[in-house]
């Protein structure tokens, strides 16, 4: 096996095209090192993407925040621009796994691996934006909502490399909450990212992204519409009424983390809790504004 360390995205694409079936991209190596070690993964060449120019770092570009795919979860969680513009992404990266995973794992690797239990992927759904991909046939951008298609499957083809991840901040007036249920050293059972604009005890607008329970992170558009305009006192009843729709949208599967019914119950419970927390924070913000 050869190790290749391209310095440019063009070189990386060239290497990938020259050995399309036998090469493997890696950055942090969290999944790749273990896969190679166990024999679950094999390749004839290993392409290290960390040295590609622009693969690392966080910057504001226009009304978006660009995150280089080789940026570690730890760096995202501790970055001031992320804290200001994409706080939920920072929180999600700060909650992921353990500190050792966060210092080594990268957001590009997390996205490409397409684990259904992804915290950063769920947070990214909430913000919307694009994943920029590049191959020998040129660049293309895939919206975050279309990026994951099934467990461990993304829109990124074998001949493509993630060049950047661009996310759109929510702007002012939004309150964002990240909720999850996790048993130590197991993937999270359910992840909820919720953002809301609340005024005068009324939810004006709402975004809800869920992960871990569905086959891949997704937005609950129907529930978002039901909650928009609802008085905050009615949140519990609106969510309770939506449970059958949520269950259908997430297609929960029974596994070692729990039965499908249990997961839907946890997920909707977390949605209620996140919405209540957003309402509480809105009240505190109002009091602080008056003070």
């Amino acid at each position: 096996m050869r190790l290749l360390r391209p310095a440019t995205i063009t070189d990386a694409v060239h290497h990938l095209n020259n050995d399309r079936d036998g090469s493997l991209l890696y950055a942090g190596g969290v999944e790749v090192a273990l896969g190679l070690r166990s024999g679950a993964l094999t390749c004839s060449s290993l392409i290290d993407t960390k040295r590609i120019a622009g693969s690392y770092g966080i910057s504001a570009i226009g009304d978006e925040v660009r995150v280089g795919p080789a940026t570690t979860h730890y760096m995202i969680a501790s970055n001031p621009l992320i804290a200001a513009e994409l706080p939920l992404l920072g929180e999600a990266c700060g909650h992921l796994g353990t500190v050792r995973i966060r210092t080594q794992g990268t957001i590009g690797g997390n996205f490409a691996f397409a684990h259904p239990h992804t915290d950063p992927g769920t947070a990214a759904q909430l913000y919307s934006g694009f994943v920029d991909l590049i191959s020998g046939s040129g660049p293309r951008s895939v919206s975050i909502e279309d990026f994951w298609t099934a467990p461990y499957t993304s829109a990124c083809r074998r001949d493509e490399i993630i060049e950047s991840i661009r996310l759109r901040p929510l702007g002012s007036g939004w309150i964002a909450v990240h909720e999850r249920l996790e048993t130590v050293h197991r993937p999270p059972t359910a992840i909820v990212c919720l953002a809301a604009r609340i005024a005068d005890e009324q939810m004006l607008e709402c975004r809800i992204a869920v992960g871990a329970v569905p086959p891949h992170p997704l937005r609950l558009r129907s529930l978002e519409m039901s909650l928009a305009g609802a008085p905050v006192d009615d949140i519990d009843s609106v969510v309770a009424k939506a449970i059958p729709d949520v269950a259908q949208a997430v297609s929960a599967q029974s596994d070692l983390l729990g039965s499908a019914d249990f997961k839907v119950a946890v997920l909707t419970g977390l949605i209620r809790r996140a919405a209540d927390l957003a309402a509480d924070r809105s009240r505190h913000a109002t009091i602080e504004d008056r003070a």
Partner: protein
Amino acid sequence: MTTNDVTIQCTINGEAWHGAVAPTDLLLDLLRDRLHLTGTKRGCERMACGACTVLVDDMPMSACGMLAVDADCRNVATIEGLGGSQSLTCLQEAFVTNVGAQCGYCTPGQLMNATALLHACHQPTRQQITEWMRANLCRCGSYAGIIEAIESASRAAGPASGTPVSQTAARAGVRDDEPS
């Protein structure tokens, strides 16, 4: 050395090292089998238990899940580089005093991860310690002693002069809202 081996150079416990490694060699294999730094323990070998924790550029990493080639141009610290043969660090002393170990197998990893925590956050709260240290398992169940040892070492060291508690590090690794 085979034709596919890669020559890397790095610093290991303060000393420069260079040599050839295969692309699939793990840092754990390099440290234990070639450099005989056996203080770094082989545990679960899937980045879950923390027994193999080392510091790479002061950050905790799983040597069992890191390719040796990725140590190129970086500073690696193992338990052998902590303190010295005749002296212990304040944290090591605190582990002894607070009985932060029973069988001791996980202790090198616990110490390395705790060292990284105290680098990032000089006076962590108990919740911050619990969150950070959940990366390391102790099958003997010495968690209370380990947490007390870290608190004790933190108190003994006091706040670093001119270096406030790192809010960014706290955001990155610590949850204040989670019960311990």
